[in-house]
């Protein structure tokens, strides 16, 4: 009886620890599966360049939503998905441009602070067969996850070519 209770007491913390450790991971995985925060560089119809938004892969489409605007891309129209690596200034946009005029070269110094990003390039065809290309940037490490989701949903993807990504 004593041995049994002792083993229960020993196992209980293990279960608790496993639950504590695994639940955020599982939650994170679930979160990763549902949406990706992206920048739309170019290529989607009716979406502005450099629009921030979210990408969601469903059974038969990739949906980009930026506020009220949405753009759907049929998975079966995707001909190729390729990932790449790049980097960007941490302080970007108009403020980043203005820092270039900051005194004593401080703007240049700020340019040294850069964050690594992933790029995802999607080649797709419209209903007439016309070629389109959509480019997204994502936080580092997420492009391959999104690509694998697209491939799992039925998108075609060529093997990764051995080429140098441009240094930024």
């Amino acid at each position: 009886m004593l041995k049994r209770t002792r083993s229960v007491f020993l196992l209980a913390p293990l279960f608790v620890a496993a639950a504590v450790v695994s639940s955020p991971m599982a939650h994170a995985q679930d979160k990763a599966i549902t949406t990706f925060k992206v920048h739309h560089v170019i290529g989607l119809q009716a979406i502005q360049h450099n629009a921030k938004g979210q990408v969601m892969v469903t059974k038969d489409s990739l949906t980009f939503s930026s506020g009220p605007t949405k753009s759907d891309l049929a998975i079966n129209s995707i001909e190729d998905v390729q990932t790449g690596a790049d980097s960007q200034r941490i302080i970007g946009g108009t403020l980043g441009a203005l820092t270039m005029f900051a005194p004593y070269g401080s703007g240049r110094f700020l340019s040294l602070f850069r964050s690594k990003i992933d790029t995802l390039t999607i080649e797709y065809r419209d209903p007439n067969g016309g070629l389109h290309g959509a480019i997204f940037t994502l936080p580092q490490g997420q492009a391959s996850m999104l690509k694998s989701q697209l491939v799992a949903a039925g998108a075609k993807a060529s093997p990764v070519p051995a080429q140098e990504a441009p240094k930024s």
Partner: protein
Amino acid sequence: MKLRSKRCMPIFFAAGVLLFAALFISPQWSAVAAQASAAPPAPIHASALQIEQIRAEDVKLPAEFQMAMYEHVIEEVEKTRRFQHLYRDGDRDAANAADLVTLKCTVTGFKPGSAEKRQVTTVAGKTSVTVHLVFTDKNGQKLAENDVQGKVQFFGENLRATFDFGKKVAAVVRQDFAPMKPAKA
């Protein structure tokens, strides 16, 4: 003797100037004159243009560059208002266009550069992409060809070179093609 050499100085100087003019200025001037006398090529009239996918056979070009260049070319050429119809690569409707011109773009050079170097040093880290453009008619006959370089030299991330490329292709289109005829009311 000294006086004679002083008198000769202007003559030598004038002779030198004339020689310089004969050697350097005259060939350049004749080239300019020849260019001016040669009539500029007549603009091409076409109602439809199909832009083929950008090829990079001998050059390692990242996929995002390739597609960004293509999208920027489409956007910028559309703004020129030289064609009634602009078709993308593989568009089935292009087969029905009467006077279709096809634009083939082949990447001949790519320098990745570095945005960080550009922003820190201003002078180093230029990103550039060189592309050979060929315009052909429906029978495959060459109508025009150009070499265009898209680059980002001072400000901007590397992909900005693709936007510059699109702008330059649009400039070539403006130069080589006649504007659209206004539609009759």
